[in-house]
């Protein structure tokens, strides 16, 4: 049975390709949707965390007597109270649940408290006396490999020295540059929060906002010394994620406090604590040399990349793999030498954020492409088109692109799209906005283009499978998946897929929990539409086959003659027309584990078929720059993206606009300021994210639809590319407007006003 036989029918509830509304839209707009910070239990206690004020120190002693004595306090727990494994981590278990004898970053958890009111928690935290021997922090990623290791696992987290093709190639034209990307915060709005509820049998339930329930579950169980089955994680409403919820934060702490007090315990981070409580985007320092022939053909790229991983590994190993593998951008490059290292420092830990390593290098390789175009006297769009990857081309890793790669289409459609940008007159719409600092005569306009790409799904041999179950009963489909809905709209797409395959109207999404289904993998790497969407699709298809076989047997019909359409089972030959609700009075169920094509680790030269699929995007930015004050207004962003197939046009637009906003933020304002290992702006007062007066309209020039083999309905993941090329495009446009090099993002006012440096 083919999909098209079913898809050809009309239904009323939106299916694939339509702008279905979110099933959680009504509760989210009415305020009744329960986020993780909204959890409540009548016996619950409040938890809190004491954090290190020092980026590097030895703990001589901790006195908790006075804290225990605070009225209302039920527990004060330390490193030694961690019942199981003392460390956790996504890839390497190198991060203490609570610091032992040493703290390695400012904000590292040292003690946890449970009390009957947050104020009592606060008083108890203040009453804990920690005697620190303060140490000089190692904070310079460029030299940290040469200093005393700050962790038993050493100061180098991972180095990939990628060598591809003939290493003796030298181009007629060479351009060189050094680039820097600052630390960005995901700045999701819903702070870390959750509630742990102990059960009588020693097991525990944890309700938490996360991106990956089963990975959390396994780490929590290890740290609690419990079997994974004794720890049940259920997704609580997630207020955004963007990578910052892939690691554990308060998970083990909550469970320890709940177990110790035998009471439900709730914890909600403050915004300041949130800045200390999750990983950030890696700051990067990058050197590049591009070689080309005089006709603009890229022949070699050399790069040295250093990413600051901060104190603990998190997902640094995978981030540096992406930075290295995609270091040259979506271009044909026959020869490359890319040395990528991610190091450990006493700075805040870094890990996943939307774009995952590709954001940093995109900013650098696109600056290089513009520089090369100038050196060649060539149009920068032409240069990109000339070198654009095509299906069948090799990547820097030696891997051949076997799927779709409409790079030229992405470039052309974006570059050729007419601009709607007007000249602003109202100071409110000029750089400086409400501050009324500039008039039209004070600004110069710049326009530039950038192209980016990254891998979809996990790479390097990782089997990030997804399990999903479908149960069709009484004409209603129930989908069970542990996929973390973090706002991206998986729940919408899962319903659309189910309707598409089963012809049903009503689709119930069961709670995402480890208690009822296997792992869906992480909500990251632009993978859930493909992986969990794929699992839902296969589970539904299996149900359809089983149901039709059952009906065929019952009715003595030929199964190949039966189709499911709009809540009925009908025979194509006519004569049979059964209501689906009746036919499924006895339920039909299926459970599948969906896997993507196998990948392999990189070899010693960074070569190998490490990735499954790739997605490409382009942005054209138009900016107004007030060169006198160094302020920038992004006037317009235009984008094209390779999306495979569009499953929900409205949600695609939402991802493209939202991702671009984070890219704009990194280009012109977002930076976690870290000085000597300390965050100087851990608040929304000083960590600035774009407001509605900062974000320009995002014009979508084209969504390139070429069905990707292996992906459900051919749909590629779409979440990350919008954040990759947007930063590079905005920075490039500021360069065009000012004529400055601007080798660092975010571009600060001082970078424009004092290009020679502050000193």
């Amino acid at each position, binding site marked *: 049975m083919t999909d098209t036989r079913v898809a050809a029918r009309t239904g009323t509830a939106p299916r694939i390709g339509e702008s279905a*509304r979110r099933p959680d839209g009504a509760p989210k*707009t009415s305020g009744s949707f329960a986020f993780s910070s909204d959890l409540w239990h009548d016996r619950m206690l409040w938890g809190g965390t004491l954090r290190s004020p020092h980026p590097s120190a030895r703990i001589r002693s901790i006195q908790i007597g006075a804290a225990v004595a605070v009225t209302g306090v039920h527990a004060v727990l330390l490193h030694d109270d961690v019942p199981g494994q003392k460390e956790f981590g996504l890839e390497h278990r190198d991060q203490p649940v609570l610091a032992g004898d040493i703290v390695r970053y400012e904000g590292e958890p040292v003690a946890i408290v449970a009390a009957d009111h947050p104020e009592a928690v606060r008083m108890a935290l203040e009453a804990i006396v920690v005697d620190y021997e303060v140490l000089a922090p190692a904070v310079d990623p460029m030299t940290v490999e040469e200093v005393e290791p700050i962790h038993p696992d050493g100061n180098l987290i991972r180095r990939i020295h990628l060598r591809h093709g003939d290493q003796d190639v030298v181009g007629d034209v060479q351009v060189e540059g050094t680039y820097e990307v600052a630390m960005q915060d995901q700045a999701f*709005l819903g702070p870390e929060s959750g509630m742990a509820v102990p059960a009588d049998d020693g097991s525990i339930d944890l309700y938490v906002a996360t991106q990956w329930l089963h990975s959390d579950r396994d780490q929590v169980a290890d740290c609690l010394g419990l079997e994974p089955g004794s720890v049940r994680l259920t997704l609580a409403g997630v207020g955004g994620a963007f990578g910052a919820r892939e690691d554990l934060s308060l998970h083990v702490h909550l469970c320890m406090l709940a177990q110790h007090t035998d009471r439900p315990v709730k914890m909600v981070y403050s915004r300041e604590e949130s800045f200390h409580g999750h990983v950030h985007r890696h700051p990067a320092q990058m050197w590049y040399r591009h070689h080309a022939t005089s006709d603009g053909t890229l022949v070699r790229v050399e790069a040295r990349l250093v990413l600051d991983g901060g104190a603990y590994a998190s997902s640094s190993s995978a981030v540096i793999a992406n930075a290295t593998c995609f270091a040259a951008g979506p271009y044909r490059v026959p020869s490359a030498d890319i040395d990528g290292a991610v190091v450990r420092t006493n700075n805040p830990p870094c890990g996943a954020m939307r774009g995952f390593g590709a954001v940093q290098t995109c900013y650098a390789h696109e600056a290089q492409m513009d520089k090369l175009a100038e050196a060649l006297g060539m149009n920068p769009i032409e240069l990109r088109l000339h070198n654009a990857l095509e299906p069948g081309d090799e990547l820097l890793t030696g891997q051949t692109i076997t799927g779709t790669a409409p790079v030229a289409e992405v470039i052309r459609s974006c570059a050729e799209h007419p601009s709607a940008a007007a000249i602003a007159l*109202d100071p409110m719409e000029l750089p400086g906005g409400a501050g009324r600092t500039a008039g039209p005569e004070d600004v110069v306009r710049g326009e530039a283009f950038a192209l980016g790409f990254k891998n979809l799904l996990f790479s390097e041999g990782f089997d990030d499978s997804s399990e999903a179950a479908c149960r069709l009963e009484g004409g209603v489909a129930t989908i069970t998946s542990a996929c973390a809905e973090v706002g991206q709209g998986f729940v919408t797409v899962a319903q659309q897929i189910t309707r598409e395959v089963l012809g049903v109207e009503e689709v119930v999404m069961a709670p995402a929990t480890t208690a009822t289904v296997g792992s869906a993998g992480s909500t990251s790497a632009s993978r859930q539409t493909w992986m969990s969407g794929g699992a839902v699709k296969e589970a539904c298809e299996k149900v359809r086959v089983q149901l039709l076989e059952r009906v065929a047997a019952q009715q003595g019909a030929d199964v190949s003659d039966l189709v499911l359409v709009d809540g009925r089972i009908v025979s194509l030959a006519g004569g049979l027309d059964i209501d689906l609700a009746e036919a499924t009075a006895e339920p039909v169920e299926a459970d599948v584990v969906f896997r993507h094509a196998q990948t392999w680790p990189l070899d010693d030269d960074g070569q190998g078929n490490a990735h499954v699929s790739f997605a490409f995007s382009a942005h054209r930015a138009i900016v107004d720059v007030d060169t006198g004050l160094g302020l920038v207004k992004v006037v317009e962003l235009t984008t094209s993206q390779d999306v495979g197939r569009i499953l929900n046009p409205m949600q695609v637009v*939402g991802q493209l606009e939202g991702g671009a906003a984070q890219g704009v933020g990194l280009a012109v304002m977002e930076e976690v300021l870290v000085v000597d290992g300390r965050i100087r702006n851990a608040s929304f007062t000083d960590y600035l994210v774009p407001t509605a007066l900062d974000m320009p309209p995002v014009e979508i020039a084209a969504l390139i639809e070429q069905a990707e083999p292996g992906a459900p309905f051919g749909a590629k993941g779409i979440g990350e590319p919008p954040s990759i090329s947007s930063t590079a495009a905005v920075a490039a446009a500021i360069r065009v407007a000012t004529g400055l090099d601007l080798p660092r993002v975010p571009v600060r006012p001082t970078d424009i006003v004092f290009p020679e440096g502050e000193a």
Partner: protein
Amino acid sequence: MSTDPYLLRVNGTDHRVGDGRPGESLLWVLRERLGFHGSKNACEEGECGSCTVLLDGQTVCSCLVLAESATGCEITTIEGVADDEGLSDVQQAFIDTGAVQCGFCTPGLIVSIGALLDSNPDPDDLTVREAISGNLCRCTGYGRILEAVNVAAAGRRNEGSAA
């Protein structure tokens, strides 16, 4: 130490707050003592707008209102913006245009936009952007939210011209 009991009038109903602690914000009391979880806690320093409520008809950040000091004021939270069981026009527009992603900023934005449209049913783009400049959204980049405002405003215009 606890405060003397005081009354808060929320969405037209008086609520008694007993054994409060000194210094509790209106946001905290709404959420944790009175069960109005719709107003959100994202920064607790007035820099995100997630906790926006109406205080005597004006938008404020409830995190920066000392709860006791709101005695005698009419407080309208997200739970009070729709007349009945249904959704307000702004809430429906958010759903229909894709303005909701994670949803954490959504209640605050709906309160802000409702207040804007009540005072100015036909705002231009810049007016809308300024009116919601105190409501951070990290998911949408504001595009669909601005579209939702357009849809809601158009709906009010049509209703007005039909009446």
